[in-house]
C-alpha cells in the first residue's frame, strides 16, 4: 500500500483560509469517520487528498500532502486512481458515459488495463455491487442509490488502496444505503483504508476505527470519550406533532397523479389536496421522488393524472402565470437569482411582489438585520457563502409573495441558529400573507412543532400522518 502523508496542510481560497494546519494519519486497513458541521472544510480536505484540488479549485496549498513522497495533485490521474478512489456526494453530474458498462470501460481504459481483462473486471465489479442487470441501462434513469453503486463498482474495478467518500448516502434510499455500507466494509476487509465524511453513521458505527473532527478548518482526532459521545449522537428522527387535515379541498389538488423516472415508478395514482394557507411537511426516504413531485407541481416534470390549482388544470395554464401562483424554492439557491448584487435582487423582488406595500425599504432593512445579512447587502450574490445565499433566496421568494411556496430542503447545510432565523421568518411572513407552505426537509429536530400537517412519501404513495383532528 502506498504511503499517504497529510501533514500540516493548509489551504486558502481567494484569501479565505479553508484548512489550517491539518494533519491526519490513517492506519492501514482502517475505517475512519470525518465529522464536522457543513462548511467546516470536510469536502475540501477529501478533494485535496483525492488530488482533485487545487487543480480544479485554484487556491493555495501548503504543507505536506503526499503519496509515496509525490505531491498528490501532481501525480498523473491514471496512476493516482490506482491508489486513491473517490466517491462523490452526487454522482449524477460526474458520469461521462451513458451506461454502467461504458463508464467502467472508460475508467479501466484510462487506467491502461489490458483489453483482455477489462470485460471480466467490469462484470465482476458490477456483480459485486449488485448492478449486473443494469449493465446497459441508461445511467441518467438510475436512482441515486443505484448510481452510487455503479460509482463504487468503478473504484472496486480500479482496486484503489484508499477509498474516500464524501457524504456518499445523501441521495441514497435506506435500503441501498445498507447495501453500500456492507460493500464498503467488505472492501475494508481486503486491507483497504477508508475515510468517510458523513453525519449519520447508523449501520457502521461498530466498525469505525478513528474519528476525525473538523471545525472551522482545523482537525483533531477524537479521543475515546469524545468518540463515544459522537457515536451516541445518532440522528434519530424525532416525532413530528401534526394533525390529520380535515377533508376539505385546498387550492393545490392532485387527482390520480403518477410520476416516474425512466421505467421506475415514483408515485402511483395518488390523490390528495394540500391544505391552503397551512404548513405541510413532506418527508420520506432519499430518492423516493420528493423533489420530482415539486418539479411536476411547477410544470417542470411530466406526470400522469391531473394536478389543478384553484380548480384549474395546471396542464392548461400558461407556465408564466402558473409559477406566479405556485413557486419552487430550489435546492440550489443560485438557480433563483436573476440580478447581480443582493441589493439589486431585493429591489427586483420588491418590484414584482404580490404584497408590495408590506415590503417597504425599512421592513427589508430590518429583515436583513434579523438574518445577519446587512453587511453583505452590496455583495455579488454568486460570491456569498452557501448559507447567505440560502437565506437571501428564501427572503426573495417571501417578498415575491407567491400564494403557494414549495421549499426543497431549505434548511440543509445551515447551522442551528440560521435554521431558527429562517423558520421564524417563514412562519411570520407566510401567516401574514396567507401563503401555503409545502416543505421537503430532513432537518426534523428544528421543526417538530412547526408544521400543521405532515405527508409521508413512501412506497409510491403520499399519506398524511398525525392524530385525527
Amino acid at each position: 500500500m502506498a504511503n499517504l502523508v497529510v501533514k500540516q496542510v493548509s489551504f486558502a481560497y481567494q484569501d479565505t483560509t479553508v484548512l489550517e494546519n491539518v494533519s491526519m494519519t490513517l492506519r492501514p486497513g482502517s475505517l475512519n469517520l470525518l465529522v464536522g458541521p457543513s462548511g467546516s472544510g470536510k469536502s475540501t480536505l477529501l478533494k485535496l487528498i483525492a488530488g482533485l484540488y487545487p487543480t480544479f479549485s485554484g487556491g493555495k496549498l501548503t504543507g505536506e500532502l503526499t503519496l509515496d513522497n509525490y505531491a498528490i495533485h501532481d501525480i498523473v490521474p491514471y496512476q493516482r486512481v490506482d491508489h486513491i478512489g473517490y466517491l462523490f456526494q452526487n454522482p449524477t453530474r460526474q458520469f461521462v458515459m451513458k451506461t454502467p458498462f461504458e463508464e467502467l470501460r472508460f475508467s479501466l481504459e484510462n487506467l491502461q488495463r489490458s483489453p483482455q481483462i477489462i470485460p471480466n473486471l467490469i462484470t465482476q465489479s458490477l456483480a459485486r455491487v449488485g448492478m449486473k442487470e443494469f449493465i446497459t441501462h441508461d445511467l441518467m434513469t438510475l436512482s441515486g442509490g443505484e448510481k452510487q453503486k455503479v460509482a463504487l463498482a468503478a473504484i472496486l474495478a480500479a482496486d484503489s488502496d484508499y477509498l474516500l467518500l464524501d457524504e456518499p448516502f445523501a441521495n441514497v434510499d435506506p435500503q441501498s444505503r445498507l447495501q453500500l455500507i456492507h460493500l464498503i466494509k467488505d472492501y475494508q476487509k481486503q486491507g483497504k483504508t477508508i475515510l468517510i465524511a458523513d453525519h449519520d453513521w447508523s449501520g457502521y458505527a461498530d466498525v469505525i476505527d478513528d474519528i476525525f473532527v473538523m471545525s472551522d478548518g482545523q482537525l483533531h482526532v477524537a479521543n475515546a470519550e469524545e468518540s463515544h459521545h459522537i457515536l451516541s449522537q445518532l440522528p434519530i428522527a424525532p416525532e413530528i406533532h401534526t394533525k390529520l387535515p380535515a377533508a376539505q379541498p385546498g387550492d393545490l389538488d392532485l387527482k390520480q397523479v403518477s410520476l416516474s423516472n425512466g421505467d421506475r415508478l415514483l408515485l402511483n395514482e395518488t390523490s390528495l389536496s394540500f391544505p391552503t394557507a397551512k404548513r405541510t411537511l413532506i418527508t420520506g426516504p432519499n430518492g423516493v421522488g420528493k423533489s420530482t413531485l415539486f418539479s411536476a407541481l411547477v410544470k417542470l416534470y411530466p406526470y400522469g393524472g391531473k394536478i389543478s390549482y384553484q380548480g384549474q388544470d395546471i396542464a392548461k395554464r400558461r407556465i408564466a402565470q402558473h409559477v406566479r401562483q405556485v413557486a419552487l424554492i430550489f435546492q440550489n439557491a443560485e438557480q433563483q437569482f436573476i440580478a447581480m448584487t443582493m441589493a439589486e435582487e431585493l429591489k427586483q423582488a420588491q418590484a414584482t411582489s404580490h404584497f408590495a406595500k408590506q415590503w417597504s425599504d425599512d421592513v427589508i432593512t430590518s429583515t436583513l438585520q434579523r438574518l445577519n445579512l446587512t453587511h453583505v447587502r452590496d455583495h455579488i450574490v454568486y460570491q456569498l457563502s452557501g448559507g447567505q445565499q440560502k437565506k437571501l433566496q428564501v427572503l426573495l421568494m417571501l417578498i415575491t409573495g407567491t400564494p403557494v411556496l414549495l421549499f426543497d430542503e431549505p434548511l440543509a447545510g445551515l447551522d442551528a441558529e440560521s435554521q431558527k432565523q429562517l423558520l421564524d421568518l417563514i412562519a411570520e411572513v407566510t401567516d401574514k400573507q396567507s401563503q401555503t407552505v409545502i416543505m421537503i426537509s430532513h432537518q426534523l429536530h428544528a421543526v417538530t412543532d412547526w408544521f400543521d400537517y405532515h405527508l409521508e412519501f413512501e412506497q409510491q404513495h403520499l399519506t398524511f400522518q398525525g392524530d385525527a383532528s
Partner: protein
Amino acid sequence: MNPLMKFGVIMLIALELTFIKSVTVNLVIIIVSALIYTVLKLRWQQWLWLLLLPILPGLGSWFSLMYFGTGDHVHMAWIMLSRVFAYLWLGGLFTLKLNDERDIFLATLEQRAHLSATFVYALVGVLNFMPAVNQQVKTIRVAAQMRGQTLHIWAPQLYFKAILAAIRWSQNLAEGMVSHGFTEGATRTHLAVVKIKLRDWVIAAIILLMFQLLLFPGWY
C-alpha cells in the same frame, strides 16, 4: 462501412454540392440515397421527416430566387430546391444511423483519426448531457418567471445563467473524468480496437470517383 469513413465521404460530397450548380447531380444524390434507404428499411416516420423537413427552406429559396433572382435564376431556383433535399437525404445516411454507430464513430475518431481523447470524451460526455441541458434551459426560464421576469431570447441574463450552469457542470464533469483516471495526453488502452478495412477505403474511393465522373463530362 466505418461510420467515420462514411462521414468523410458524405462531407466531401456535401462540400462539392455547395459549388455544383446542377439539378441532375442533386437528383442523382437524392435517388441514390433513396435507394440506400429502401435497403436500410426506414420507419415511416423517418421517411416523413426526410420528405417534410426540406420543404420549407427549399421553397423559401425557390420563391425568392424566382422573384428576386437575376441571370439564370429560374434554373438556380430549382437547383436550390433540389440541393436542400440532397443535403438532408445525403446527411441522413449518416445521422439516421448515428444512434447505432455512435460508439464506433467516436472510437474511430480517437483511435484512427488520432483526435485527442480530451475532445472525444468531452464530446461524448456533453452529448450524454443533452437531455439535462434541455431541462436546465427550461428551468432557467421558469425560475425567472417565478420572480416575475421573462427571460427573452435577447436577454443577456438568460445566457449568463446558461453559461453559469455550463461552468459548474464542466467543472463537475472534469472532476468526474479525472476521478475515473482520465489523464490528458496519456495513453489509453482500448477494449475494442477499431480497424478500417481495406474494403472501406476501396468503396470510399469508388464512390468519390464515380461522383467526380458525374461532374466531369458535363453531359447533363
